């Protein structure tokens, strides 16, 4: 309003010079004056209308806006492989089980389960759950959901993108209206950890509208129902008043407090932060560590963190000299001061890893201590391995990790290694790394289940899809194969403790860190905490 008052009182002083000589004489002066006054009147009218339109008219009716960092790929829970897409979908769809913010598996649609044999799981479905169209959720819907995922070519002639996430699931049987049985082709200890990533869809509705109709108007059993959306712009949801309440183990239980939630696609980090500070959004994800202090100075913003699940490490090609010598690999670990890198480059928003497994992961070996930063020992080991004068080294990585790699390169240079950094497009670097054509690569690997199976198997089993270090150890392969099917927790712990020692001693990696998920919200957001798997769960969130 201050602007409008200022505009009105000063409009008569606004001048609009013309490059051309105006008509001369009295008639020219009058005509020119009339033209200018008309123009000023229109500017005043448009400005008044313009600034009276609110940019986001939501605060009165409890609408919360989340700024997400990439487009949503699909609203079909079975047919995508994207974390941001999953975050949005899981506010509309619930699964058999879910995860607490600190990573524990708890019941959701399934009220209980049992594992009568190593390859059979039985789930009891909670009664009284309805989909957004009022249809009751029964075992038929669960069977339909999973059949659609695991059956080849079940989605319009194509196989579901999420089939691989429950690969060992072979068959789903309905026992009764509220009991479902999963039959696996082999024991799979991480089934429960993988189930939060699959959400239940309504069989009757889906069969009546087909894939296209379902994507246009998705119906789930989650706390919010779909209202409208453009996947590359914004998705709007409203409270489902008949929501069963969600997991009874995560309080409070009941329909969501918020009337409406909107996920706005804002890919650029600086724009997302500006939107939060301007009050246009309430929650944003993926805040870079160097922006945390800036946001903390804003009294309207609260920064929140959760320990993440992406493991970051340098992978040394054990088939190429000099990394075919374990002494050199150990020297590399002693040369790096990872604590300083975590503190100075990552702002303290990461946790150093002692070995290969996440510090908050299952079967983490507490006895393992990180390699000590000891440049003298590093030089000694290098000399013993015949590299007293060091060696040239190019660290290959992507743009995201440039700073970390350059800081580490400097530490390598301090022990005589002529290290430099080369930045690549990941699509180009990955096949080279996988073929063993690069000496050392810095990358990360996601481990949202917190179980070593989907971290160690792809990264360190011989010739597996993420094994950029080309590490191949028959004993480790055997341990990881056994661990992947061991359902007895004590035996599994024994297996993975042994595996961790083996990896630590062989040191195919310079063990790195796991960064925190840094997110931020406006100060009037209540009852929201970030999750370690970067999921933004709005079920229990409210606005002051």
């Amino acid at each position, binding site marked *: 309003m201050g602007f409008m008052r200022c505009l009105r009182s000063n409009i008569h002083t606004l001048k609009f010079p013309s*490059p051309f000589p105006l008509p001369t004489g009295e008639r020219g002066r009058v005509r020119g004056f009339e033209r200018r006054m008309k123009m000023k009147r229109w500017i005043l009218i448009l400005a008044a209308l313009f600034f009276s339109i609110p*940019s*986001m008219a939501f605060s009165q009716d409890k609408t919360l806006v989340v700024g997400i960092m990439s487009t949503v790929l699909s609203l079909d829970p079975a047919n995508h492989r994207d974390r941001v897409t999953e975050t949005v979908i899981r506010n509309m769809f619930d699964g058999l089980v879910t995860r607490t913010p600190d990573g524990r598996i708890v019941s959701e649609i399934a009220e209980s389960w049992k594992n009568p044999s190593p390859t059979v799981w039985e789930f009891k479905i909670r009664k009284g759950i309805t989909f957004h169209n009022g249809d009751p959720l029964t075992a038929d819907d669960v069977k339909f959901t999973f059949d659609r995922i695991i059956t080849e070519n079940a989605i319009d002639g194509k196989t579901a993108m999420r089939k691989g996430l429950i690969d060992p699931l072979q068959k789903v049987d309905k026992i009764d209206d509220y009991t479902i049985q999963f039959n696996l082709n082999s024991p799979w200890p991480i089934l429960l950890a993988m189930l939060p990533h699959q959400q239940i869809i309504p069989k009757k509705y889906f069969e009546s509208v087909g894939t296209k109709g379902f994507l246009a108007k998705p119906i789930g059993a989650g706390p919010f129902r779909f209202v409208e959306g*453009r996947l590359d712009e914004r998705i709007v949801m409203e409270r489902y008043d008949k929501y069963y309440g969600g997991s009874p183990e995560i309080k409070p239980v009941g329909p969501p407090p918020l009337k409406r939630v909107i996920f706005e696609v804002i*890919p650029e980090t600086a*724009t997302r932060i500006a939107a939060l500070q301007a009050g246009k959004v309430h929650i944003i994800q993926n805040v870079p560590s160097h922006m945390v202090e800036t946001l903390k100075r804003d009294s309207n913003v609260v920064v929140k963190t959760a320990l993440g699940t992406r493991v970051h490490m340098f992978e040394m090609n054990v088939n190429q000299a000099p990394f075919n010598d374990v002494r050199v690999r150990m020297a590399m670990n002693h040369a790096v001061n990872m604590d300083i890198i975590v503190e100075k480059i990552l702002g303290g928003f990461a946790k150093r890893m002692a070995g290969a497994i996440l510090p908050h992961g299952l079967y983490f070996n507490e006895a393992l201590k990180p390699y000590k930063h000891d440049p003298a020992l590093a030089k000694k080991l290098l000399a013993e391995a015949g590299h007293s004068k060091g060696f040239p080294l190019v660290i290959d990585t992507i743009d995201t990790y440039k700073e970390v790699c350059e800081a580490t390169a400097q530490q390598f240079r301090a022990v005589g290694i002529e290290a430099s950094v080369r930045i690549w497009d990941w699509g180009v670097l990955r096949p080279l790394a996988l073929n063993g054509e690069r000496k050392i690569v810095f990358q990360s*690997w996601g481990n949202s289940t917190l179980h070593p199976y989907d971290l160690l198997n792809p990264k360190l089993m011989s010739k597996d899809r993420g094994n950029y270090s080309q590490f191949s150890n028959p004993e480790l392969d055997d341990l990881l194969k056994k661990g992947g099917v061991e359902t007895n927790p004590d035996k599994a712990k024994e297996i993975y403790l042994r595996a961790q020692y083996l990896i630590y001693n062989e040191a195919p990696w310079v063990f790195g860190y796991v960064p925190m998920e840094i997110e931020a919200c406006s100060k009037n957001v209540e009852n929201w905490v970030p999750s370690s798997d970067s999921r933004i769960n709005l079920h229990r969130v409210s606005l002051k």
Partner: protein
Amino acid sequence: MRFVKIIERILAAIPVMLGVAVMVFAFMRLTPGDPVDLMMGEAGVVSKAEIQTIREQFKLDQPLPTQLFHYLSGLVRGDLGTSFKKKEPVGKLIFDRFPATMELALGSLLLGLAMGIPIGIWSAVKQSSALDRISMLGAFFGISMPPFWLGLILIIFFSATLGWLPVSGRITYGLAPTSITGMYMVDSLLTGRMDSFLSSLEHLLLPSVTLGLALASIIARIMRSSMLEVMRQDYVTLARAKGNREFIVVHKHALRNALIPTVTVVGIQIGVLLGGNMIVESVFGWPGIGRLAVDAIFARDYPLVQGVVIIYSLTYVMANLAVDILYTFLNPKITL
């Protein structure tokens, strides 16, 4: 006669498009990086069987000539294929986003022309004056400022600090008009919704200024140079000698010829603008085809990249044809 020439030019574009289609097909497949690998991401366990199944679904297991044949035969039927990552027809993905790009392109173009042409004329008429020097200095900065930086500065100042304009997006939730053209400003005028019009205008303003400023700078400089050249011609001196007012001399006699180089630049810029600007679209969260294209390239989403490049080529061909047609109106001595 002109109509026949236009049809000839359109038909001549077909082999160009075909060549582009084959080239982009080949380049994408020669580019390192496997789309299925990239789609699976750097997380979890994925079996070799699953990867093989997906490769078969995308026909990536077939020999390249077979893949090319399937692609070209689809193209002839108007089928641009299905996006690997988004699982939707490429044509639909591009068609859904094209109005947003068109709206931003038109907004930037109008702003660029509205600022650039008068400033160029003004600077030429008042050559060497203080205003001439200031405007050319401004044009220099306008060309030099990276759009990424300018966009963020505008957001920080007008959106975050002053709160006058929105940070991102195309329109306030709840105000989207009924879709006719897909361009919110046009649709709101057609449906008589002033609230939608103003909301879409305020969302369009900052991204248009970001792109339009650079365009205005280029146009101003070219306009000034060509005006100075034309104003020195004998026929302009004659027009003055006949007693015409300066306004008539500049606009009626000099401007039409001076516009020709400007029209050339505008034609090239239309192609650039309609191709979408990924940086500005990312900064402002503008859902156009620029962002779509770059995401597709990094994901090695072959059908989507191919589709987008074909649309870019078509846009350039049509824009250049429009420019050539405009020449003939500006100067009847020029023929197609």
